[in-house]
């Protein structure tokens, strides 16, 4: 069972994927979280920049329940 307060909200910016909610009762790495998102979406996530509370988070950083993560495609300027 997934309670509302154990969800991590992953928001894919500039993407048709939009918002994905992942059941996440325990802290887990961003890498694992993205792997779960990939499973839900049915395609690889690719290179991204992840930002939570105005800070960049890395693949090994822990994500807690109730966190909201903004995911941007890792682009660069021209």
């Amino acid at each position: 069972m997934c309670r509302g307060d154990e969800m991590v909200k992953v928001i894919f910016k500039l993407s048709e994927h939009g918002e994905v909610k992942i059941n996440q009762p325990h802290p887990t790495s961003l890498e694992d979280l993205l792997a779960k998102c990939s499973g839900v979406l049915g395609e690889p996530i690719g290179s991204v920049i992840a930002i939570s509370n105005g800070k960049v988070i890395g693949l090994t950083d822990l994500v807690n329940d109730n966190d909201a993560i903004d995911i941007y495609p890792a682009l660069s300027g021209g």
Partner: protein
Amino acid sequence: MFNTLRINTVTGEYTKETNDEKVFLLGGRTLSSYMVSKEVAASCDPLGRHNKMFFCCGALSGTMVSSANRLSIGSKSPLTGGIKESNAGGIVGHRMAQQGLRCIVLEDAPVEEDANWKIIVISKDKVELIDGEFLAKKGVYEKSELLTEKFGPKAGCLTIGPAGENLLLASGIACSDPHGVCSRYAGRGGLGAVLASKKIIAMVILKDGGVEPEFADADAFKAGTKNILHLLKENPVSTSFTKYGTAAMVDICQALKVLPTNNFKQGTMEGAEKINAQAMYDLIKERGGAGRTQHACQLPCAIQCSNVFPDKDGNLLCSPIEYETMALMGSNLGLKNLDTIAELNRYANDAGVDTLEVGAAMGVALEAGIANFGDDQACIDLMKEVLNITPMGRILGSGCKIAAKVFGVRHAPHILGQGLPAYEPRGTKGMAMTYLSSPMGGDHTFGFTLRDEDVPTSKEGKVELSKKFQVIGSRMDAMGTCNFMRYSVRNDMSPLLDLIKARYDVVITTDEFDDFVKSTLRREHQFNTDAGITIADHRFSETFYETAQPETGEKIDITDEECAEAMKW
């Protein structure tokens, strides 16, 4: 064998030379920086007769490989006083390849100040210097139409605007796009002024070359070409470019607090969503007409990150609008209106200036109180002054450093006199390290670290990170391919090197290729040292070290020693 066409811009005499060294095979920045280092006295006046210009296409130019027709232009920069390589999309590189040329060298300059403007016309049979006075004092758009009228829409043309004609240091060189419009800029470093100093107002390469690429192994080349296409289509980063182009960076930089705002005083702008990629995408779709959310700056190109921005009636207003312009001529001026940014971009293109350099110069002008940040009409009026070459326009068209001196602004965002690109350096120490250590002055493509910085506000590990991406970024320039192809080959260059093997039957290993990249960097730094540039020039304005960025509380804390380490190859 690779051909170099050497043209004397005073006498019109020309010669052809052939070389078979690998540096000529690779072309692009590898060749342009090699030639500048070898043939230009570092101490020369960049606008004098001893400076030269080198136009180089790349190893895969003229083939069907996607995104491989960049034109690399090398010279001594009048803006930085150091070496310059500025590259552009468009069709000029392709036309060079069809004429069997790897490099065009322009030498000499008239001593007489009243010498007439000339156009260089290159065809399969001859090279001519013809009268170019009919183009003088006209904007780039009108010049482009006149060139098309005279030479046809398929000719590969490059030209300069009024800013270049007047030797302004922010002037660039506009190259024809696949539709025959001179809109693809080698914008940085003042190369428009260098061309003008030789009294060359345009160079035209006709489409009568007829040289078809030869392949050592045609089947392998075909398979390799398909592989590149596959890699580009499969790569999520490249495919993201296809929908939103570089404009996607507005949101990313706003989120990372590095969106240059109000003359690089802040890293976020309230209302940034009004000028972000989604807003632009929606507006282009809504207006329709000539508008395009995808557009190829060169052919062939599977990435198509460019766009065509239409006015309210659906007519072409500007193409392309890139992220860097949206920031330097948008948030950096406190502007939140895409139509205003597009209009500024159009005037800049018509004047023939680098949008980054003039955007940075306008930022310091607004800080000096010439107008208010966020005043759309005042900014448009200032940009018109650049186009009309008024005294104010001359100051802004001379770039950020000079504008800051004239207006008495200490917070001048530049390195080596070249305006900073669109990433507030106090909030991203990796990009700060790249800006500081680039031989070209403030440059982002040189080593784009932002997406790979775990803690952007910390300088820890940033020497190594910047150096890593200096190599990755420079690889694409090194052989004349688009910078955005790097995402598909950043961990393995062999798909591109296999194509070189299939085309020329020459093996270049990944290590050997990176050695070329590193030796180019060494060569560029050495040129600058010989030109009198020291480590003390590789610094931000002191205010970046003294005043914290409001959003991050960060100052620049990178030392000369760390910068020197990032420049060591």
